[in-house]
């Protein structure tokens, strides 16, 4: 039986080229119109050290990285050991490993019963013989995988050509010989691939993009023409991408001296009338927090992308977690309204970023896009057609409003007319100090109360106009899973699998986290019997956040939370759903 969904993981040291190999598989598959999700993991080393790359390729839609590995390639068991507990094989996985690696494979913990197929391959020897260098090991492997599992061979060969065409002819030819050697060796062990051979039809080529890139493109689409940022893992790809594209769009980019300066420059640029953005991770957001309050107080639109990583402090810079939630929601001195959005996949990163600009411009306040390493750095296939989004702009004052211009006029919606330099008659002085409707400083209680109310009132409009969320699964469900951000992928897949088994399970994923989409939550809760809140935060920040706004059904609410550092898998969600389904069933028996 051929398969239409295959997850391949590769583990090696820096220099083994596992990431390059993963890139080539992902590119080749995207070119063939297949769906791909590619995830990389590294040790903390700058160069060298262990790295792993997992590519899931599917003829159908995919929502998660694929929690069980079908094919594992290991160049070095010592490197594999550093990912213990993170790379989990399927019980019928095919484990292809370097035949000469000294560590005996029977001492390796694959996380499953030893029912896997062990396939030793002399990668080093094959590379030496065919290409004259062990450096071609990854290209030999690419050929081998292509031959064994029927991946698109011609496209992968073109990928190899593309990769080496700028090098000397000998290098290109050596690698092409390596690729062929892999294919030839695969023919000698083809029976080992039984049951895992991939079958697909070629379709229109897909886009292959990371969440960070999708945020950056979304910003350009929204009309962002000024970016200021400070490098920080795992957000820096946004800075990198825009450093090329922002000037091409006629905009400007500055790598500032720190995050304080980045948010300051963004507020300055936006005050000056140009849509502006910064991107950072948790530690950077912490530094920006004071001026987040300034943007809130001075009512200056600002977009901040926070790509979460494991924390606190330096934490786990290269790995994902959902533990900046409270910082994004509440991190402030004083009452500082802001909006928090959470993209749940790569495509969402585009839409959430455009929405963030629309909201920032309309409500004149800071908007945080709470991404995370898992969604930001993985590469996923997307269709061009889904990447469009309406763009809105700032409300310009009428000529009448410029008469005795009140920049902070207290209106029904809380939104006031905003001018920017260059507009004659619209000059005003803004302030981090509390101020009256004209922007003049005031420390009177009455002014403070009135202006706080005005600034918070703007959130109502945001909640009513932008309450976007996703709901999956049964209309009425025995179990409803609530999660946010990148947890959506594995949760959605687990729910759809459960539905496939005839189980009544549903999921709710809000993209607008704050202002809190109260009615949508209430509606969902009314359709489910038991609730599971799923998140990657040890202290259960999301669950506690929900409880500040919602009465979750007492005795029927379960929390599945753990630290980040390892992405959420479909299997662990399914497991919790099963347990709660059983408990619900037991409860109903008792009630009868």
């Amino acid at each position: 039986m051929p398969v239409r969904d295959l997850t391949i993981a590769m583990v090696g040291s820096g220099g083994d080229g596992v990431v390059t190999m993963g890139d080539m598989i992902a590119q080749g598959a995207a070119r063939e119109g297949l769906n791909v999700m590619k995830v990389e993991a590294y040790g903390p080393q700058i160069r060298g050290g262990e790295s792993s790359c997992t590519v899931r390729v599917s003829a159908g839609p995919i929502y998660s990285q694929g929690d069980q590995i079908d094919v594992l390639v290991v160049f070095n068991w010592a490197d594999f050991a550093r990912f213990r507990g993170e790379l989990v094989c399927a019980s019928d996985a095919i484990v292809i490993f370097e035949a000469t690696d000294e560590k005996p494979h029977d001492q390796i913990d694959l996380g499953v019963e030893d029912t896997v197929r062990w396939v030793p391959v002399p990668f080093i020897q094959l590379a030496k013989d065919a290409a004259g260098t062990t450096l071609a090991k990854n290209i030999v492997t690419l050929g081998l995988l292509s031959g064994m599992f029927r991946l698109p061979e011609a496209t992968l060969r073109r990928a190899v050509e593309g990769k080496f065409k700028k090098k000397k002819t000998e290098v290109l030819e050596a690698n092409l010989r390596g690729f062929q050697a892999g294919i030839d060796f695969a023919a000698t062990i083809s029976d080992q691939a039984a049951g895992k051979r991939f079958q697909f039809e070629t379709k229109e080529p897909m886009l292959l993009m990371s969440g960070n890139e999708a945020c950056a493109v979304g910003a350009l689409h929204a009309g962002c023409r000024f970016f200021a940022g400070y490098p920080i893992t795992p957000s820096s790809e946004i800075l990198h991408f825009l450093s090329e594209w922002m000037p091409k769009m006629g905009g400007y980019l500055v790598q500032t001296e720190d995050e304080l300066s980045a948010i300051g420059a963004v507020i300055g640029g936006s005050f000056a009338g140009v849509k502006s953005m910064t991107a950072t991770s948790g530690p950077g957001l912490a530094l920006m927090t004071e001026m987040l309050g300034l943007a809130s107080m001075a009512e200056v639109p600002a977009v901040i992308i926070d790509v979460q990583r494991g924390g606190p402090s330096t934490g786990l810079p290269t790995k994902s977690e959902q533990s900046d939630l409270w910082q994004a929601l509440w991190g402030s001195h004083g009452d500082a309204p802001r909006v928090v959005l959470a993209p749940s996949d790569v495509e969402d990163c585009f839409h959430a970023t455009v929405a963030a600009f629309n909201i920032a411009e309309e409500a004149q306040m800071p908007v945080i896009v709470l991404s995370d390493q898992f969604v930001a750095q993985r590469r996923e296939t997307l269709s061009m057609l889904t990447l469009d989004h309406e763009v809105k702009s700032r409300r310009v004052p009428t000529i009448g409003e410029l008469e005795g211009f009140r920049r902070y006029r207290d209106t029904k919606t809380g939104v006031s007319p905003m001018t920017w330099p260059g507009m004659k008659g619209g000059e005003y002085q803004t302030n981090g100090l509390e101020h009256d409707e004209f922007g003049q400083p005031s420390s009177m209680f009455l002014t403070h109360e009135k202006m706080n109310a005005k600034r918070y009132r703007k959130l109502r409009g945001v909640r009513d106009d932008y309450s976007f969320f996703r709901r999956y699964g049964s209309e009425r469900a025995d179990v409803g899973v609530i999660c946010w951000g990148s947890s959506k992928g594995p949760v959605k897949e687990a729910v759809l699998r459960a539905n496939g088994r005839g189980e009544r399970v549903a999921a709710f994923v809000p993209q607008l986290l704050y202002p809190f989409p109260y009615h949508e939550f209430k509606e969902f809760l009314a359709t489910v019997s038991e609730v599971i809140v799923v998140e990657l935060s040890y202290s259960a920040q999301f669950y506690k956040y929900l409880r500040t706004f919602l009465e979750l059904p007492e005795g029927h609410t379960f929390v599945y939370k753990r630290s980040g550092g390892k992405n959420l898998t479909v299997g662990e969600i399914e497991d919790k759903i099963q347990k709660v389904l059983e408990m619900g069933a037991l409860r109903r028996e008792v009630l009868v």
Partner: protein
Amino acid sequence: MNATTVTDIKFKPGDYKSDLKPVWCPGCGDFGVLSALYRALAKVGVEPENTVVLSGIGCSSRLPGYVKTYGFNGVHGRALTLATGVKVARPELTVIAVGGDGDGLAIGGNHLMHACRRNLDVTYILMDNEIYGLTKGQVAPTTPTGDKTKSTFWGNPEPSVDPCELAMSCGATWVARGFSGDLKFLVELVEGALRHHGFAFLNVMSPCVTWRGDDQFKSMKEKLRTLPEDHDPTRRANALAYTRETEVLTQGVLYEVETPSMVDRLESIKQRAMNGRPAPSTRDILETFIPKV
């Protein structure tokens, strides 16, 4: 050229005056700086709607509220970060940052270094009273060693910094020192700063009558002298001779050179990136994500 120049007289100093009454103490040196700014703006003739005055926090940082241009009184130490955003996003605007010695040299010191280094096309007026005024009299980075303040009961144990020396060493292309008690000369300095192409750093000795007493003003006035006419400001070594002074206080343009500004460099990058083509559409950008294999 940092400011828009007009040949005919278009504005009077009063055109830049807002309705807000300064909160400064009577006798505060900052009044002199404000007057000098009104006059210099009128002399250069910049349009109020095309001008932005930004500040951090401190007594002197209240200044933007008193100028009828676009203004931004931000948070402590970050005036230059806001100014960076305004100037880079809208290079055609005249951008002026103001603040005190604590704001610019202590909490915001890092930003000063980088604004100088970048040669950001902004005028930065630092009103130096050698004390924290708004928080009621604590020691500042420019307070002389040994001075008693609210936070140095036994005398200031730390050496002070010379702001002009700092700015020069970080790459500012126009560096001057002025005194708020010599208004006529100060107007010339502010005008020069506004007309400079690149980062103009003007350190104005602006006495604090409340926390430094009448003596500070008297002492500054006594020590004040003006740079000799034959001073060559294009040589840093010459300029450095007038820093870290103790017995005298020299006002004038210590250092002045012309190099490409941050805006020049970013504009040139933009020209190279666009290469005469219109900006790409979102679709053009997206198409680059289809793997070329």
